[in-house]
């Protein structure tokens, strides 16, 4: 399936409604990046509703990469003892957009 991307801040209740979800799948990524089907008028209307800004796949990937890099840097800065804390914590892994 082909996808489109946008950036929009999730304000909470009403951001994605059951009506939206019944029409198309929205998938969220770090950096407030949202993935929607490329050929869905309902998805386009949703982007308008949430005041989203369309991004190319490359632009969206750059935003996600930056967020992941920040999280990885924070993890790398932890001491060995902190990394062993009982959170089952692991170094954030790269995310590749489809």
């Amino acid at each position, binding site marked *: 399936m082909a996808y489109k991307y946008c950036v929009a801040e999730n*304000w909470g209740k009403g951001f994605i*409604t059951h009506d939206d979800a019944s029409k198309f799948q929205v998938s969220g990524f770090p950096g407030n990046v949202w993935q929607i089907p490329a050929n869905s008028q309902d998805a386009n209307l949703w982007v308008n509703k949430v005041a989203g800004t369309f991004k190319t796949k490359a632009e969206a990937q750059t935003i996600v990469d930056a967020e992941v890099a920040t*999280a990885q840097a924070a993890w790398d800065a932890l001491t060995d003892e902190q990394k062993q804390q009982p959170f089952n914590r692991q170094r954030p892994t790269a995310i590749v957009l489809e």
Partner: protein
Amino acid sequence: MTTYKGINGFAVQSVATDPSPLNEGQVWYNNATYAFKVTTATTVGTWASGGNLNTARRVMGAAGTQTSALAFGGVTPPDAISGATELYNGTSWTSNPTGLNTARLGQGSASAGTQTSTLSFGGNDGSPPGNTGATESWGGSTWTTVPATLNTARKQGGSCGTQTAALFFTGGSWTPAEPGTTSLTTATEKYNGTSWTTSGNMSTARSGIGPATAGSQTAALGFGGYVSSPTRTAATESFNGTSWTTVNSMNTARRNLAGAGTQTSALAFGGLTQTPPDVNTGATELWNGTSWTTNPNSMATARSSIGGTGTQAAALAIGGGPAGVSTEEFTGPGVAQTKTITTS
């Protein structure tokens, strides 16, 4: 020309507020919003956004329903063990002035309890010896530590039941003396409002298991979890009040997932997958008492270590990693819902 009145013998009602409860097939005109509306039954489950938490967290406790829930404890960014407690009214979260007496992560919850009556037990408070067996009771505004403690202190087990009849099963231990290692237990314990007693052990020891949170001491379900590195399981076990029986497995093996519902009508969502290893998923599965079916609609934000509560028809996914603050609300298939009639 065919008319609605001609077919049904009565005209469409004009009302100022939408009717409640909803009946499938019901049509009305809302004269406040100038919209014709109809009640339809959902065919597949869907996830919608709920209110955002005030305090981002993961590996927390949760209880209550989709419209009246409680979240407590967990890990807050960057890596602090928290006792913070928040209340959800179906739209937004409100921070309670006071939190748990023992801040902790991965605790069990009397998740079939209510927003005003639940328990927090076990988990890890970050201090030696690591896991705690402490039990606290929530009275609607404050937590009170009760004398009873778990026989086997542990974190990230499965739990369900109420404030006076709770169940805690399997889970893992962590000790500062052995950083990075986890030992697992199959232990099951019941709380009767006064003390914890042991019951039949699970077949497969694991942590990060998903429970049917609306289950009870006599009818519980546990699914998925971490078994050993690198194995995450899809195995499901059912409890009858005395012993556990292995039943059909989930479609997606995972750990640190969340659950909702009952022994015969459960929901599994989120977690870290086996393949590819430890990737956050939003995958959602429905249990009908016999087998699991993957729901076509996944959570919008794939995540793990979520707070889960509610039923298969109306569940809540709270926080979790990596997002931390977002809440999603699940409406299961077959549930009546209002749709606005448009020309498109």
